[in-house]
């Protein structure tokens, strides 16, 4: 029996891996996979199937990042994180990159010591209520009981919104989405508030989604994006440009289906050639293989394809592109030029 304590200590020593800070890319290459922090479970964005395989919108971006580095979308491991553990997981080097509906805010960017490398989903905080309540606007919610998921910017926005409108409310803080949902369904709260995408995703899992409605007010800006530890510019650049490459791919019509062909045959569009590593040495600059973007796109398609497959209007989640449409099509999705 005595050996057990010893073994744990020893196992700890064995399990030690260097990860944090400088040269994340080297560490990642050395261990052979990317460790990606995701949500513990949010329909459409990050969830496991019955076999424990991760899938979803955020997860696909993680996989694209792994594919850009290793050429293999499965060279990745996922760490489910809660609102509480996500930042520590990243700060301690437990994960290399965090793709978990995390809102880009000044204090997180500056004070917590992280770098946001882009926005993969423009969101805003909304409210969901029962249709039977007859509420048409969030301004009518005076005195309501509101379920909130803690550990997010949600509770801060909510406090601001109700204070600004001179209304009172009864906050019910909940740790996870599943519990909040349970509480809302048992009518222990009138309103459930979180990011509008999360609300839509949650509503989609209800037995009778038609009995619930999202109120028109969006009370905050929630740019959700990937973040990495501050101080490793190379790694931050990789994460930023994988995301940008997927957006540019949509812009230029490079899809999962035609990316291999375009990469082999080249294209008339020089930007596509640069993107797919036919021209220039952009991969070298990032410390990646020349065809990194080809693998990234092949992993799950371009931005539009990822969106449609996981959360788009054809899925149960049924989100419209809205703000997340390309800038050329009325949205605000705008990647810097690839040159």
């Amino acid at each position, binding site marked *: *029996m*005595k*050996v*057990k*304590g*010893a*073994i*744990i*200590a*020893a*196992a*700890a*020593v*064995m*399990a*030690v*891996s*260097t*990860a*944090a*800070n400088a040269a994340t890319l080297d560490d990642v290459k050395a261990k052979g996979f990317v460790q990606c922090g995701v949500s*513990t*479970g*949010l*329909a459409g964005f990050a*969830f*496991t199937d019955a*076999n*424990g395989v991760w899938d979803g919108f955020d997860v696909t971006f993680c996989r694209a990042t792994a594919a850009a580095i290793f050429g293999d979308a499965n060279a990745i*491991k*996922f*760490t*489910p*994180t*809660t609102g*509480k*553990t996500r930042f*520590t997981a990243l*700060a*301690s*080097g*437990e994960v290399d990159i965090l793709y978990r509906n995390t809102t880009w805010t000044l204090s997180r960017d500056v004070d917590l010591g992280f770098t946001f490398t882009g926005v993969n989903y423009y969101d805003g905080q909304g409210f969901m209520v029962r249709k039977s309540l007859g509420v048409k606007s969030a301004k009518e919610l005076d005195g309501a009981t509101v379920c909130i998921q803690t550990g997010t910017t949600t509770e801060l926005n909510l406090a601001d919104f109700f204070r600004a409108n001179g209304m009172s409310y009864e906050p019910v803080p909940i*740790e*996870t*989405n*599943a*519990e909040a*949902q*349970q509480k809302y*369904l048992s009518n222990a709260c009138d309103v459930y508030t979180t990011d509008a995408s999360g609300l839509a995703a949650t509503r*989609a*899992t*209800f*037995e009778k989604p038609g009995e619930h409605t999202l109120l028109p007010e969006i009370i905050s800006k929630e740019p959700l994006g990937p973040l990495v530890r501050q101080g490793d510019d190379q790694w931050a650049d990789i994460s930023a440009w994988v995301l940008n490459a997927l957006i540019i791919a949509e812009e230029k019509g490079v899809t999962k289906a035609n990316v291999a062909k375009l990469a082999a045959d080249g294209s008339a569009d020089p930007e596509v050639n640069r993107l797919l590593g036919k021209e220039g040495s952009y991969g070298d600059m990032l410390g990646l293989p020349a065809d990194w973007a080809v693998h990234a796109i092949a992993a799950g398609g371009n931005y539009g394809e990822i969106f449609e497959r996981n959360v788009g209007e054809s899925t*149960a989640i049924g989100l419209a592109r809205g703000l997340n449409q390309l800038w050329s099509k009325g949205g605000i999705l705008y990647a810097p030029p690839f040159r």
Partner: protein
Amino acid sequence: MSDSRKPFVASGDIPPSPPPSSVVGPIAWVRANLFSSISNTVMTLFGVFIIYSLLAAVIPWLFIDSVWNATSLSDCRSIDNGACLAVIKERYLQFIYGFYPEEERWRPILSFFLMIVAVAPILFAGVPRRVLYLSGLYPAIAYWLIWGGTIWGPVGVVLGLVLAVVAYRLITTTLPAVVGLIGGGLVLVLWWLFGVEIFDGALTSVVDIGLPVVESSKIGGFLLSLIIGVSGIAGSFPLGIALALGRRSNLLFIKALSTCFIEFIRGVPLITLLFVASTLLNYFLPPGTSFDVVLRVVIMVTLFASAYMAEVIRGGLAALPKGQYEAADALGLDYWKSMRLIILPQALKISIPGIVNTFIGLFKDTVLVSVIGLLDPVGILNPIRADQNWNGIVWELYGFISIFFFIFCFGMSRYSQYLERKLQTGHG
């Protein structure tokens, strides 16, 4: 004096007549135990009412109207209005193993049975002593079986202990035991820090024996509870002994240190220690080090349990008659020898029921890891309830978890009561 005038003389005993029905038999029992007074009658009726209403609610729900075959909650509800046990039927494997790969599940099962064999010599008398070697090796075996990977890592770790013992023996031939302990400890730490890696690497490149690696994030359910509980209690055993001895030591500094540690750990809730495991532990390690969250939790739980274990063992030490200590001194044994040969074997024997109780408490506490996002039986509820098919299901899941814990903990507590009785008669 003819025969006819002979007085009556009984030829034998009159057979005893049965006692009146008001004194024995079921009716008398009912009268004495249920309706002996007005207040008793009222209480009995109240009790009957409670039992009736509980059974009337539970039995139809659980047995008569329950649904075993359905694919979703709404499906269940459309079949019957009782318990939707289909969710248990579909997910019970997740409750047991978490997301442990299906084709590898023989490994935890094998570890479980090996564990029973390994603890047998400690818990039951009459098991061959030789099995103790297996108990000693078990942690390494179980680690290798459950997490997989190359076999040389665990072998290296065990080898470290062998080296430490050899070093201790060599040193103590010339120097006193304290130096031996320090030397042995030093060898152990150095070997584990540097030797194991080299040993592992070298042998793996020569003969690569291993099992497929299973990551911690896939381990969940009752398996996780058992891993945390068992390794916590096993790890806390040596630590607890050291702390208990430290607290009873007459070396001031060591006593103060042990007391502070014990009181600190016992003074804070386990959940704050788990927060430390999930958020702070990495701050205390050299920059760039990070390791698995399950291991971090096991470390914190071990520290937590060791404080409680120390108090249990201290109780055992205090319960020994003073004559035992004095006799050991009188024989001229030094501190370590008297502890090892006389005091600890007796003190630990008396402490076993307390240790079992600590284990029960710890095992129940393992569900707290769900708060930091691990997939223990309570944590596994989240993915199940997030599933479109099952959201809105409550009682069936809580009931299943409760029954499991009840069976396990009740069994253990009965065992510890049995031990207590056995030990008591041993003394008397």
